[in-house]
């Protein structure tokens, strides 16, 4: 298949996985890439898991869908159970180790872990867990350029309360920091 980056974000309903995906999509679009963002929806409205798939490509995106993403950003255990078998061979998993109490069983995967729920609670920003994970993931993979993200932060969050933006930025940078230190 054609090379495009397809990243899956998955977690509980309330963990902000859809926004993580949208953030990345916006950021990539800001860089002039072709993008698409496809959420799972509805069934997950009350509880359960939520996920979205982000595609980033240089060329026009033919299919915004795939069952087999290259990368999966996993916020809780049920999501790992569900998506581990579907990640592409030699793909990457980014794990919220606070809520995922096991490692992937497959040994071909590139595994990156960080305890974002705990980190977020420590920062007194429990809703910021998703941004921490996103910061770490972007820092590590450079799927979009970190500088561009930081420059565009306000644009991406356009219309949001400046305080909220500030909190998100903090969380994001904490993730970047964590990845720099721990994921070599």
């Amino acid at each position, binding site marked *: 298949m054609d090379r495009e980056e397809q990243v899956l974000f998955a977690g509980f309903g309330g963990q902000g996985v859809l926004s993580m995906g949208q953030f990345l999509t916006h950021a990539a679009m800001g860089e002039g890439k072709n993008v698409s963002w496809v959420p799972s929806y509805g069934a997950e*409205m*009350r*509880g359960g898991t939520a996920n979205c798939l982000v595609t980033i490509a240089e060329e026009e995106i033919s299919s915004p869908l795939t069952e087999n993403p290259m990368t999966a950003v996993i916020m809780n255990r049920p999501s790992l159970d569900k998506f581990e078998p579907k990640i592409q061979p030699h793909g990457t998993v980014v794990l919220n180790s606070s809520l995922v109490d096991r490692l992937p069983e497959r040994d071909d995967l590139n595994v990156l872990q960080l305890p974002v729920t705990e980190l977020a609670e420590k920062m007194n920003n429990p809703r910021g867990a998703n941004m921490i994970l996103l910061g770490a993931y972007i820092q590590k993979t450079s799927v979009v350029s970190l500088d561009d993200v930081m420059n565009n932060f306000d644009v991406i969050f356009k219309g949001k309360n400046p305080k909220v933006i500030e909190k998100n930025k903090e969380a994001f940078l904490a993730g970047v920091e964590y990845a720099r230190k721990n994921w070599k």
Partner: protein
Amino acid sequence: MKTVAARPESLTGAQYHYCPGCTHGIIHRLVAEVIDELGIREKTIGICPVGCAVLAYDYFNCDMLEAAHGRAPAIATGIKRMLPENVVFTYQGDGDLASIGMAEILHASARGEKITVIFVNNAVYGMTGGQMAPTTLLGQVTTTSPYGRKAEVEGYPVRMAEILAENEGSAYIARTTVNKPANVRRTKKAIKKAFEIQQKGLGFTMVEILSACPTNWGLSPVQALEWIDENMIPYYPLGEFKNKEA
């Protein structure tokens, strides 16, 4: 020590999919307790709505049907007419009962169908993500009344208990809430009365229950219970609106 509160037999015990603090769960339990207490589980047939309670067939431990949106009273009619000895109840939200299902509920009541309707009024469409309901209060913000409901534009909230009490076929109509222990007890009594009057064949019975939707009201569960006191009860007074036994 003896057990004074536990899961009633008429619930399966399956984990609810409801949001934290959603009082659908309390209401489910009350219905189940009444069914237990009346000893009618094996002859009760329940009908769930389309709405947040759409999966109630997984929760109630008796024969259950899942209805098309708003049509539960018609389905209940079909069942009760064929099986007059059974006990039939519907469980419906305000979108289901008061919006799309208005004709069906009004006619079930006019016909005096011997069924019990558990009407969960949370002033909003929960399942579909917080749109306006016919019971949404004036000024209340929802995704389809984003500037607050205005009488001039969206009209006035409907008071179903009062309307249905107009029908001769209605035998028992009450409005209660579950926002504090005393009200939970009253709600259970009303539900029990409704089931009893159904069994006596006196006519149509309904308990309208003011219920919290913390998620779509944008409140914490505890605040949501207070919101019922402060905003809903003034427009939707509690009480019995019809009781053919009284």
